[in-house]
């Protein structure tokens, strides 16, 4: 007498298992307790031991088939015994079975008059149906609905089915008696109202990304000269920062790259003879970008002083809003936080923005062979590709790197 071999149900919520490997081939002898095949659920793999000794008469599935649990996968018996009674019939998908609607949920009464054929249009709860409340609870508790058996009308998953299960993250699924309101798993510790400024920043940034074609490119400039200048200023008690020097170099370099010192407005490109330089400032209320007018013409000390004055006003919140407008190019320095590279977001209608990164040591090949570690400062230049192509952007970045590398040659720095 041949016996059927069924795919086991490995756990309450398992609906199907993946058949991994037949350890015995069709026609092969198998002893009781010998491994017939291996299979896996989405959690683990298992071996199936033959419940009886005999010949593997037939296999109904191939390796890598996803087999519904309790489905017969093979037959074991003596050669010549019939196995056809075990051959699985092709599955009918339960959700489209018209039979289901003929069986009212738990009704013990049958209406004498209704015609089931006409009621196919009625949405009934299939295996995956879940009430909105159950869905939300499941999401909060990170429970996979496909692994929950529904106890609602027509098998719909309802809230109590979710509450009865332990949450994936280990919190208990049972709730204390008498506690009507299920505490929602919510780690919010404070709720901060969105300030107007936050909203404006958000809208601008979103708008910028949505409405321009932003391309960011990175480069490093030798910072040896830059750092020695900085040391020299320090020794002289002159409060001139790396940002100040980069600002000066960036502004002056722009004069020979007018395509980047431009605004794109109303499908027109406006180029400028001078650089009105926006410099990003981190304030308690968020990002602000004061503009230093005619930055290309200011001596370093005045540029530095002006920037300090404006950024202080930004932090205090006393800045004249007019001084936050009218920039033609912006720089944003995250280098002091050790950032090595980022993708600055353009400040429309400007078409380019320079991100300034941290100084790091990079190997440089020596003429005499070998290499030396030299300090380098990183730049991340974002351009609006609608207006500026990659090559002009790269050319500017190259010029800037050269200018920074030789910054001590700049008369403004030396004086």
């Amino acid at each position, binding site marked *: 007498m041949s016996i059927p071999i069924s795919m086991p149900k490995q756990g309450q919520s398992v609906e199907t298992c993946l058949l991994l490997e037949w350890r015995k081939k069709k026609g092969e002898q198998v002893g009781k307790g010998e491994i017939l095949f291996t299979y896996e659920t989405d959690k683990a793999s298992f071996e199936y031991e033959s419940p009886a000794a005999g010949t593997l008469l037939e296999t109904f599935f191939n390796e890598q088939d996803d087999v519904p649990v309790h489905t017969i996968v093979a037959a074991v018996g003596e050669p010549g015994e019939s196995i056809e009674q075990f051959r699985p019939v092709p599955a009918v998908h339960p959700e489209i079975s018209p039979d289901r609607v003929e069986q009212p949920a*738990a*009704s013990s*009464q049958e*209406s004498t008059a209704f015609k089931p054929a006409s*009621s196919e249009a009625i949405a009934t709860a299939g295996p995956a149906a879940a*009430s*909105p409340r159950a869905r939300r609870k499941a999401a909060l508790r990170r429970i996979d609905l496909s692994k929950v058996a529904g106890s609602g*009308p027509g098998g719909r998953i309802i809230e109590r089915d979710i509450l009865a299960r332990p949450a994936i993250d280990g919190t208990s699924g049972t709730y204390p008696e008498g506690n009507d309101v299920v505490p929602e798993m919510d780690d919010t510790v404070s709720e901060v109202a969105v300030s107007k400024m936050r909203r404006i920043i958000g809208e601008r940034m979103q708008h910028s990304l949505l409405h321009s074609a932003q391309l960011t490119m990175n480069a490093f400039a030798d910072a040896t000269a830059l750092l020695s200048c900085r040391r020299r200023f320090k020794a002289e008690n002159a409060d001139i920062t790396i940002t100040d020097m980069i600002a000066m170099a960036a502004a002056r370099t722009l004069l020979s790259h007018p395509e980047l010192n431009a605004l794109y407005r109303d499908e027109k490109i406006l180029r400028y003879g001078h650089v009105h330089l926006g410099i990003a400032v981190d304030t308690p209320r968020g990002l602000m970008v004061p503009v230093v007018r005619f930055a290309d013409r200011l001596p370093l000390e005045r540029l530095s002083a002006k920037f300090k004055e404006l950024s202080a006003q930004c932090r205090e919140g006393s800045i004249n809003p007019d001084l936050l407008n009218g920039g033609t190019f912006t720089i944003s320095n995250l280098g002091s936080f050790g950032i090595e590279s980022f993708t600055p977001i353009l400040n429309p209608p400007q078409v380019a923005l320079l991100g300034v990164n941290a100084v790091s040591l990079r190997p440089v090949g020596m003429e005499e062979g070998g290499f030396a570690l030299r300090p380098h400062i990183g730049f991340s230049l974002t351009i609006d590709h609608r207006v500026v192509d990659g090559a002009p952007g790269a050319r500017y970045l190259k010029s800037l790197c050269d200018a920074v590398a030789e910054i001590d040659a700049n008369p403004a720095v030396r004086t």
Partner: protein
Amino acid sequence: MPKSQLIDPKKVRKEGLIVFRDVPVNQYRTPFEKEVTNLGSEALMRICGDMMILREFETMLNLVKTTGNYEGIPYNHPGPAHLSMGQEAAAVGQAFVLDVDDFIFGSHRSHGEILAKGLSAIAKLDESRLREIMSSYLDGAILRAVETNNRKPVRELAVDFLIYGALAEIFARSTGFNKGLGGSMHAFFTPFGIYPNNAIVGGSADISVGAALYKKCNRKEGIVVCNIGDASMGCGPVWEAICLATMDQYRLLWDGAYKGGLPLIFNFMNNHYGMGGQPTGETMGFEILARIGAGVNPQQMHAERVDGYNPLAVIDAFRRKKEILKQKNGPVLLDTVTYRISGHSPSDASSYRDKEELELWEKEDSIAAFGALLTGHKVCSGKDLDELRSLSRELVLGAFKLAVDDSRSPRMDVRKDPDAIGRYMFSNRRREKMDDRLCETLLPMSENPRLAQIAKRSRSGLDAGGKELPKGKAVQFRDAVFEAVLSAFYLDPTLIAYGEENRDWGGAFAVYRGLTEALPYHRLFNTSISEGAIVGSAVGYGLCGGRVIAELMYCDFLGRAGDEVFNQLSKWQGMSAGLLEMPVVLRVSVGSKYGAQHSQDWTSLCTHIPGLKVVFPATPYDAKGLMNAALRGTDPVVFFESQRVYDVGELFHEGGVPEAFYEVPIGVPDIKRVGKDVTFISVGATLYTAVKAADALHSRYGLNVELIDLRTLTPLDYSIILESIKKTGRVLLTGDACQRGSYLNDVAQHITELAFDDLDAPPVVVGSRNWITPAHELEKFFFPQPEWLIDAVHEKIVPLPGHTVTTNFTAVEGFRIAKLGI
């Protein structure tokens, strides 16, 4: 049924004949020379000039409708314009007699009547009052639109104001008399005694009766004129209005100063056509409309036919009739013969009348004929008439130019102000009394015999141990309503109450027992069996500024008052752009046990109609509190009461029904029982069915039901409902209204939208079957039963372990019966 009147079989069985007096037909015979002496030439010329203004106004509208142009200025007016060209003499003659505090109500064809009454009021008001009216009306918006740098004398300015205000209203401008929310068929201007016109044929009839009741019961000066068409004589509500207006009791039973007939003229503007049908000769049988009045009462309604093509005949008739009203011998029926030479509306192809007929009437045109009389008798010259004619053109053209100018006459900006119209649906004011004077009563409130009886009862329906008291031992629902109504009668002197069997009987369900002893006839009376006119007259009483409780004995009779509830009571606050208030409570009793036409809950019909507040209390506490709130508000409240619960005591509110005054806010549901597993929302007496189901669900399945009584259907604050569903995730709504179209489906739909993610099952509505209500013995198969609610929970919300259903609430069954329409 007053005991003072004996119905003596000897008398009523005695043989005899009814003798009718002659009904005068066009009996005006005063020689013109005499009228010149009577009225003076200045007045005669004014009559002529006023008729010309009316004619020019409608000529302009006719040109706009038919050619899209007036005097070279293009304009498109897509709305209605039912013209009364030809009827000017009837309108101007009437208005000439009427004083400012005489009210006119009109029809869909009343432009002429409005203008004539307005012109008359302008001539009669003193200048300072005129200016005050113009500058205060709509905060001076209309005045600002017409006032130019070129300052005119006040009366001339007022004429501009009148013509412009009416036209801007017709053109739906925010500077119209009713901010453009009334329009051609509903325009009115109460400071000049011009009360609402009505787009429903005969709609003004019962409203006018209410206005006349307002004048009578509050001893206000003036009369009321109801201008409706000859074809409206075929409308039931018009006949009901005539019945209500001619009740014997005004002459026989009302006391003292209130004794006597209503100050009301039913003036049928008899232009011989409905839209196209001819009442005389085709669609009616009276031959001469005045005949109808002869059969109504012994006074024959002082009916007569008047030649409405002669303004002097109309003046003569109105003078005589007004005198009759002054003598408290009204009401009066007038059959004012006239003719509209314009079509019913611009789409009228005059397929129902011959050109010859039109020409005959045009030959007798009242304006030309009257002009000829004036020149013939040397009252004025032909040149004077030409001047009048060109003045009328100038006035109308000036108003037209202004009214079509979007900058001077803008429309409501509903985009900018989304509630621009919505805010006028309800006035939402609180007024303890509508007038400040002594309340007329027959005994001090404290001596009321009903109150003495109630005092012996427990205020709560439960004894100290929480057990239900026998019904006779507790303050019942009907007592609670009575307390609220009685106290309002001692607070608001304008309050009156009426309906069928209200006096003596005390209302069919004994709610008013004890009121008859307390109130004189004019504050509490029985009416004819005229549901339409009961509600319609309440509308008229309310919009004139009085508070009234009207009663429909059975909800099933609401259909009889369909137009009055659905088109009048609900709409006038909105159509007046908030200028009118409607402090009307309509008590509607919902029956049971009496079969298909006496057991229906039609709350849903009322909630469907914008402009009505709809309440349906189920407990004595809520009934008194909601009635108190309704009687201090300014909005129409349809107050449903279930006959199932008139005798119940207060079982929910701690301490029972307070003796003192309190209000339950309209629009807020109430949690009757706290629970956590499933929310039941009930409306009306179905609360008690829901309680039984909740008890069973608890004892049999351990479910704790949270019970919410809707109390109010419109307006409705969903806060409490949503809070509850947040907690339970499950909701079943139940009421006695037939399931299909039940308002509860609307609530369920709102819940689905507002609390979708909180729902653990679809909101389930359990209403009555979509059948006739069967006999009492079979009612348990028709109205929701406790077991139905449990079955519905089991089938649609959460399967109950071991539950065996007795009814079929499966989706399949719902599908099947919907397909069959049952």
